[in-house]
C-alpha cells in the first residue's frame, strides 16, 4: 500500500516537472502577448486563437501592413527533411545494424565504429567546409543535400539502437526459418525486421525527433525556402519585440506531427520486445 502511494506521488512529481512547461506553453499559445507579459503572471485572460490563425493563414496583420508568415512552409520543410532522412537512414541503417548484430566479420566493428564516429564531429566543425563543397556540387539549398547531411544525426542513432534489438532476437528463430527453406533475404524481411520492429520504431521516432529539432544544418546549407520550423519559430523574434504567443503557438504546431507519429508508434514503443517468452 505504501509502495503504491509512493509510486503515485513520484509519478505525479515526474508528470508535474515534465508536463507543466508544456501546459504553460499551451496556455501561452492562446494568450495575447500583453497577457503573457504580465507581472505577476496570471491565469485570468481571454483565450484567443489569433496566434494560430496568423500561423496557419500565413497572414500576420500589423499596424504597418500585412506580413507574410512562412511558418506552414517551415513545417512542410521539417516534415520533408525529417521523413526523408529517417527513411533513408532506415534503408541504410537497418541492414547494416543487422550485419553488425549477426555477423562477426573482418573490420565489422571498425565499420560500425566509423559510422558512429560521424556523430562525434561537432556540426560546427564541418559546417563551413560543407557549405563550400555543397555550393561546388550544387547541393546547396536542396532537400537532397540536407537529407544527406542529416544522416550524420539519424544514421548513427538508428544503427546503434536497432543493432541492440537485433542482437536480442534469438538467432535460433532465424535459423529455424532458414532451415524451413527460406532464403536469407526472406528471413531478414519476414523474421528479423518484424521482430525488431519495436526497436526500429523507437529508433526511427528518436531519429525523427533529432532531425526535427536540428536547425544549424538547414540554416547554413539552405535558403529560406528550405528552413525548418526551428528556424521559422525564431522569426517571431524581431527588433520590435518577441511575440511569445506566436512562438508558443508555433511550438505547439511543431510538436503536433511528432506527437502524431509517437502515438502511431506508441504500440511498439511501450510494447518492448516481449520476446522473453520464446528466448529460452
Amino acid at each position: 500500500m505504501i509502495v503504491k502511494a509512493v509510486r503515485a506521488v513520484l509519478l505525479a512529481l515526474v508528470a508535474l516537472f515534465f508536463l507543466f512547461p508544456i501546459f504553460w506553453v499551451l496556455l501561452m499559445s492562446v494568450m495575447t502577448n500583453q497577457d503573457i507579459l504580465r507581472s505577476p503572471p496570471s491565469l485570468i485572460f481571454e483565450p484567443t486563437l489569433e496566434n494560430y490563425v496568423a500561423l496557419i493563414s500565413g497572414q500576420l496583420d500589423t499596424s504597418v501592413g500585412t506580413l507574410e508568415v512562412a511558418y506552414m512552409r517551415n513545417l512542410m520543410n521539417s516534415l520533408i527533411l525529417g521523413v526523408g532522412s529517417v527513411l533513408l537512414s532506415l534503408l541504410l541503417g537497418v541492414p547494416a545494424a543487422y550485419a553488425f548484430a549477426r555477423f562477426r566479420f573482418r573490420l565489422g566493428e571498425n565499420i560500425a565504429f566509423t559510422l558512429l564516429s560521424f556523430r562525434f564531429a561537432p556540426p560546427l566543425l564541418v559546417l563551413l567546409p560543407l557549405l563550400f563543397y555543397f555550393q561546388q556540387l550544387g547541393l546547396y539549398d536542396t532537400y537532397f543535400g540536407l537529407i544527406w547531411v542529416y544522416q550524420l544525426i539519424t544514421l548513427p542513432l538508428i544503427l546503434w539502437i536497432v543493432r541492440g534489438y537485433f542482437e536480442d532476437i534469438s538467432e535460433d528463430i532465424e535459423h529455424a526459418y532458414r532451415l524451413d527453406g527460406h532464403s536469407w533475404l526472406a528471413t531478414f524481411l519476414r523474421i528479423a525486421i518484424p521482430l525488431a520492429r519495436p526497436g526500429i520504431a523507437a529508433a526511427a521516432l528518436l531519429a525523427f525527433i533529432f532531425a526535427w529539432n536540428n536547425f544549424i544544418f538547414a540554416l547554413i546549407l539552405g535558403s529560406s525556402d528550405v528552413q525548418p520550423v526551428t528556424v521559422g519559430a525564431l522569426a517571431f523574434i524581431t527588433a520590435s519585440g518577441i511575440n511569445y504567443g506566436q512562438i508558443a503557438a508555433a511550438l505547439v504546431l511543431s510538436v503536433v506531427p511528432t506527437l502524431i507519429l509517437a502515438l502511431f508508434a506508441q504500440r511498439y514503443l511501450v510494447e518492448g520486445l516481449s520476446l522473453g517468452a520464446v528466448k529460452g
Partner: protein
Amino acid sequence: MVELAQDRALPRARSSARDWLLPYLLSLPSLLVTIGILIPFGTAVYYSMERYNLAFPAGRQFIWFGNYISLFGDPGFWNTLQVSLLYTLLCVGIQLLLGLGIALLLVRRTWFNDVMSVLLILPLMVAPAIASLMWKLMTNPSFGILSYLLTLVGVERFPWASSPDTALFTVVLVDTWVYTPFITILLLAGLRALPKQPFEAAELDGVPQSFVFFRITLPMLMPYILTAGLFRMLEAIQQFDIIYAMTQGGPGDTLMVFQIQAYLSAFTYTNIGRSAAVLMVLWAITFLLSNLVIKRWLKLRERRHGNA
C-alpha cells in the same frame, strides 16, 4: 561402424563467396553514403592548422600546431574543458538516474502508464533552442511563472541563469527537462525486452527487491543504459542550443563550453583556425570517451551472447 570411403581426399571446407560478402553488402552502403563527410572533415582539420581569420585574408598561413599551442596556453581553454566535462557529467548522470527511475515507474503496463509514456516524450519533441526560449521566459523575474511560483513558496529573487552560482544548475535543469525522455524511452523499451524467467525465479525464491534490481535488472539493462548514456554524452559534451539561448556562455565565463567557444570564434570573431582547433579538441575528447563506452558495450555483449 564408421563407413568412410578412405580413398576420398578430405575436402577443405570453404565458405562460399556470398557468405563472406553478405555482411559487407549490408553494411557498406551506409558507409559509402556517409563517408563523404570525411572530405569536409579533412578540410576542417587543415583549417585547424592554419592561421585563418576571415577578416585578415592576407595573414592566412599554415602554422602546423600553432592554434593548438596557443589554445593550451590559454586559461580560458582549460576553463572550457572543465565546464564542458562538468556539464556532461551532471547531465548524463542525473538524466540516467532520473530516466531509469521513470522507466521503472512506468514499466508495468497499465492504461495510465501507456498514456504517460507518450506524454513524457513531449519535452523531447520541442526543439531545444525554442524550449530554452520558453524556459527563459518562465524564469524571467517579472513575467516568469516559475519565478512567481518560487515567490509563493518563499523563495524571493532566485537568480536562475543570471548568477554564476545558479547558472549551471539552471541549464542542467533545462537540459534534463529536454533530454531525460530520450533515456526513458530507451530504458523503458529495454526493461520490457528483458526475459521474464530470472524475475519469476527470483520472485519464487523470495529474493529481496533490492537484490533483484542490482543483481538482475541492472546488469541485464546495462547495454541499453550504455547506448542511452553514449548518445546522451555525445549530445551533452557538444551542447550549444540550450546554453547559448539561456546565457550565451555567461555570466562571466561560467558556461563557456566548447561549442560556444567554437561558435563565437567562428561566427562572431571570424577566426576559423582557432574555432577548428577548439572543435578538433572537442572531437578528440568525444572520440576517447565514446571509445571507452563502446568497449564496455562490446564486452557486455560478448558476455551476454556467448561465443557460438
